[in-house]
């Protein structure tokens, strides 16, 4: 039987764990607010970019552009966006499971991977398929520049025909309680059809439309990548917050049951002592 002292120690240690999980939950909540705001702030740019691209592609021979050209897919590049740290519930596990599925689906093709986030990189190393390149530790201070770096890499791989398609695997931020694993094809860029009923405006161009498209498309990819990274970041923080909330509650439950048990043990010890005293007195 556990002694009183052991139980007290145990309770103290659970309490301090609870304090840590509670603090982690608060931190995640605070950072989540910032991340959500950033998604919100990035939206107008992404929307305008899309509208712009729509109107340019609608009036150019855009099929000719290397980033829009579809070719038979033999080699695919997967960008796996995971978190840098654990302690966020099933966030990373869901991703690695989805990656596993992806690999078996694409078994007939040559798959290479770019890892964003430490957990994904570690997973790939364990699996024995080291990533082509890795972007680790970018989520603590996520900036547009980092999305640019990833985007440049995939654009280059695609336009040099090193790969025939680029897919993104990431967690989408649905709400604080739910994240959804998504697989999206980023390259080739799907031609954007203008929304029905929308009149096309005839623009004056300062430079040839094809040239404009040339600089517009890589930027479009950048905004897409940036969005995926922001979503993943927000989803990670939300998952962490929920996980830490559960952990804090579990710790509270554990403390309760341990305290109850400790009191029983103490009661038993007292009773035993009394019996000893009484029987000692009776013997004399």
């Amino acid at each position, binding site marked *: 039987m556990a002694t009183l002292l052991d139980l007290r120690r145990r309770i103290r240690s659970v309490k301090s764990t609870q304090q840590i999980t509670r603090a982690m939950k608060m931190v995640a909540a605070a950072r989540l607010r910032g991340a959500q705001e950033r998604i919100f702030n990035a939206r*107008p*740019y992404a929307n305008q970019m899309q509208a*712009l691209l729509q109107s340019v592609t609608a009036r150019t021979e855009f099929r000719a552009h290397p980033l829009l050209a579809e070719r038979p897919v033999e080699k695919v590049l997967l960008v796996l966006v995971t978190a840098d740290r654990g302690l966020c519930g099933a966030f990373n596990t869901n991703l690695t499971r989805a990656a596993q599925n992806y690999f078996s689906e694409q078994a007939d093709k040559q798959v290479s991977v770019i890892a964003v986030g430490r957990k994904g990189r570690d997973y790939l190393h364990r699996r024995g398929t080291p990533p082509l390149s890795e972007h680790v530790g970018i989520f603590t201070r996520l900036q547009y520049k980092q999305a640019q770096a990833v985007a440049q890499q995939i654009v280059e791989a695609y336009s040099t025909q090193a790969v025939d398609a680029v897919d993104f695997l990431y967690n989408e931020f649905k709400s604080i309680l739910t994240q959804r694993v998504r697989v999206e094809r980023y390259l080739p860029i799907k031609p954007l059809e203008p929304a029905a009923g929308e009149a096309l405006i005839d623009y004056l161009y*300062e430079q040839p439309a094809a040239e404009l498209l040339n600089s517009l498309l890589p930027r479009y990819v950048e905004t897409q990548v940036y969005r995926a990274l922001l979503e993943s970041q927000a989803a990670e923080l939300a998952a962490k917050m929920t996980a830490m909330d559960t952990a804090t509650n579990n710790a509270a439950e554990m403390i309760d049951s341990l305290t109850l048990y400790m009191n029983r043990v103490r009661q038993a010890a007292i009773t035993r002592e009394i019996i000893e005293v009484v029987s000692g007195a009776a013997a004399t």
Partner: protein
Amino acid sequence: MADVIATEIRLDIVTPDHLVAHDSVSGVTLPGKTGYLGILPGHAPLLTELAPGKLTYMRDGLPHGVCVTWGFAEVLPDRVIVLVQTAERAEEIDVERAERAKQRAEDRLKRFADPQIDMERAHEALRRALARLETARHLQG
């Protein structure tokens, strides 16, 4: 056409991080890739790439300056949408930092024989620094 030509344009300046401006203005000057463009209300639809430079506009009779780096602008008769990588209002510009960046870029460009230096990058850095300084001066002058 009996359209009444508006006297104001709605100007939106957006970057990936935030909305820099959302104003009703009476005129905008854009740093186009092939030169500065003056936009007044009722301008024909136009699409252009932007170069690092000084974007200025008038609001309530007061001039405002924003330093923009690479981006796009879409001009419609009643609306100007500026999509840029970075945009800083003139009053936000760190002049000292821009001066340092200019110095650094110039030093790099002087060592043009050095194969380790990416000339194009240095050029671009210089252009950005100059754009910042110019915008900052515009506010003071």
